[in-house]
């Protein structure tokens, strides 16, 4: 359904006075999502997860230049096509209630979403009623303002926005930050349900455990690039390929609980070779020469020349 290949995003910034500088925040990023599938995108803050979502929706700021290939249903996603598709075929589930207008009743906002997706006013109203009922939101909730919602209600309202739009591709950007475990599970189940209905779901998160609960595949981002796109079961089967993915997995409390030393390189100071080379236990001279291409190792793509060992 969606395929992103070799995506690069560069921002033009004013450095000092009128001198401009180019800041490449996403390099060689790849991702693909099929219908009926949940693909989790995991990575630390600043690894380019949200930017990818904004790029797919065509809502990056004006000073961003995008290169590379983005295909939606086989057709290139140009800026014009993004404008036509967003809210209709592609929907975003935002992080928090802060993404709703604080002065507008939530029912009205979700109805507006439905109308933007092409429904008439009565049809949109019916869709809101139906969706709120589906997520066990009482009719009265429609007349509440965002600040009146509880954490769980807020999540369900936000998921509702994606459901009323009838979108085929749903991008959930960090939908579970700081929530009660029950609410996290509930939200994740809602996303899984959407995939079962045949939608493609991208779950952006830094919580690898949450991702593994529902994802079919997991794309691991590091410093603006995709280092590996693993199958979900690869993690527990000890088949994960990239040293960064392995380090992430080991750092979980229920595993070895060993943190990775060092930190992700900033966009101003990216290494010339492999982006992970300065923290990698397997690093060799070869790694520092050029960025590793995608290699198929044990049935999945990985950006590491030593992954097959």
């Amino acid at each position, binding site marked *: 359904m969606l395929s992103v290949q070799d995506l690069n995003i560069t921002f033009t910034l004013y450095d000092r006075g009128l001198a401009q500088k180019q800041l490449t925040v996403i390099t060689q990023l790849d991702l693909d999502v099929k219908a009926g599938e949940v693909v989790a995108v995991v990575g630390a803050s600043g690894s380019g997860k949200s930017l990818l979502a904004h790029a797919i*929706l065509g*809502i990056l700021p004006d000073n961003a230049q995008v290169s590379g290939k983005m295909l939606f249903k086989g057709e290139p996603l140009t800026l014009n096509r993004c*404008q036509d598709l*967003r*809210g*209709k075929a592609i*929907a*975003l589930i*935002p992080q*928090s209630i*802060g*993404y*709703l*207008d*604080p*002065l*507008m009743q939530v029912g009205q906002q979700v109805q*507006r*979403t439905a109308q*933007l*997706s092409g429904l008439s006013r009565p049809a949109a109203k019916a869709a809101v009623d139906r969706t709120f009922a589906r997520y066990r939101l009482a009719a009265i909730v429609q007349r509440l*303002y965002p*600040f*009146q919602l509880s954490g769980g209600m807020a999540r369900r309202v936000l998921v509702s*926005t994606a459901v009323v*739009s009838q979108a085929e591709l749903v991008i959930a950007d960090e939908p579970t930050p700081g929530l009660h475990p029950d609410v996290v599970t509930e939200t994740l189940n809602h996303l899984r349900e959407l995939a079962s209905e045949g939608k493609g779901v991208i779950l952006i998160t830094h919580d690898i455990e949450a991702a593994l609960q529902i994802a079919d595949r997991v794309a691991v981002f590091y410093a603006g690039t995709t280092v590996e796109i693993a199958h979900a079961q690869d993690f527990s089967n000890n088949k994960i390929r990239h040293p960064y993915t392995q380090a992430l997995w080991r750092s979980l409390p229920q595993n070895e609980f060993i943190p990775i030393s060092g930190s992700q390189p900033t966009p101003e100071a990216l290494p010339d070779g492999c982006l992970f080379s300065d923290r990698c236990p397997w690093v060799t001279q070869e790694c520092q020469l050029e960025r590793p291409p995608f290699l198929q190792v044990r049935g999945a793509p990985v950006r590491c020349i030593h992954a097959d060992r």
Partner: protein
Amino acid sequence: MQLGIAAFMLRKLLRLALLLIAVAIFSFVLISLSPIDPIDAYVGADMLQISPEQRDIIAQRWGLDQPMMTRFILWLRQLASGNLGTSIIFNQPVSTVIGSRFQTSLQMLAIAWLLSGALGLAMGVVAGARAGSWLDRAIRFYAYTLAASPTFWVALLLLLVFSVSLKITPICCATPPGVLTKDVTVWQRLHHLILPAATLSLIGVANIALHTRQKLIEVLNSDYVLFARAQGESLVGIIRHHGLRNIILPALTLQFASLSELFGGSVLAEQVFSYPGLGKATVEAALRSDVPLLVGIVFFSALFVYTGNLIADLTYQIVDPRIRIGKSS
């Protein structure tokens, strides 16, 4: 919620009482210490015809021989019973003068207020939506220039252009000279207040336009607008559904709070156009040492500005759901 508003109003009324007491003390002390001699002001040009004995009789009659504290209490008692005294220059009770003068000013102030509010909001929205464009620059240039221009200067400029050169507006006053008040038509009144109202609007626009622009830019950079864009909302749709909703409250507050500037501006504008409103009465009262009228106007303007601020605060209480519902639940 009803209780909340009632408590709010009670608190505000208490503050108003404190404010008025402070105004009373300050104006009394300042006037007492000023070089204005009340008897000179009252007698005026007939000064040479009265003897010192007669002066003493007037002073005794008015209680001017009493100590300051006693005079203050006597005056306060009269004030509390609603007696603001008699205007020396108009020879009428102060409350009557203020009432009739304010009525003349009111139409002009109301038109200026509405016009500057609507125009300023529209300019602010356009500038904010197209931030950085030449249109935005032009609007900001206009706003900064007008905000820095003295009211009387703008008034004189308009007078020169429209009354002197183009001759399409009257040169002074609220009604055509030589016409009885009962024969003046509504159109003639409007024709006369158009320039003073325009002066105040042109200047009043600056504040609200700049504020609205800033607020709209803030809204356009918010997370909820990003989400609206992700849903396919256009710029016009964003302004219609989210922009106006979020900028109208602060704009209303600002516009009500700007009543003080409007009142201050009217003093200058009415002077230039010889428009016989409250602003012009203020200047006359000050120039001709009409202390009762001046103090009356001080009280009235304090009340006027306070009411503006009160309405501004009250709109938030009633309109913003976060305050309206958030407080009660």
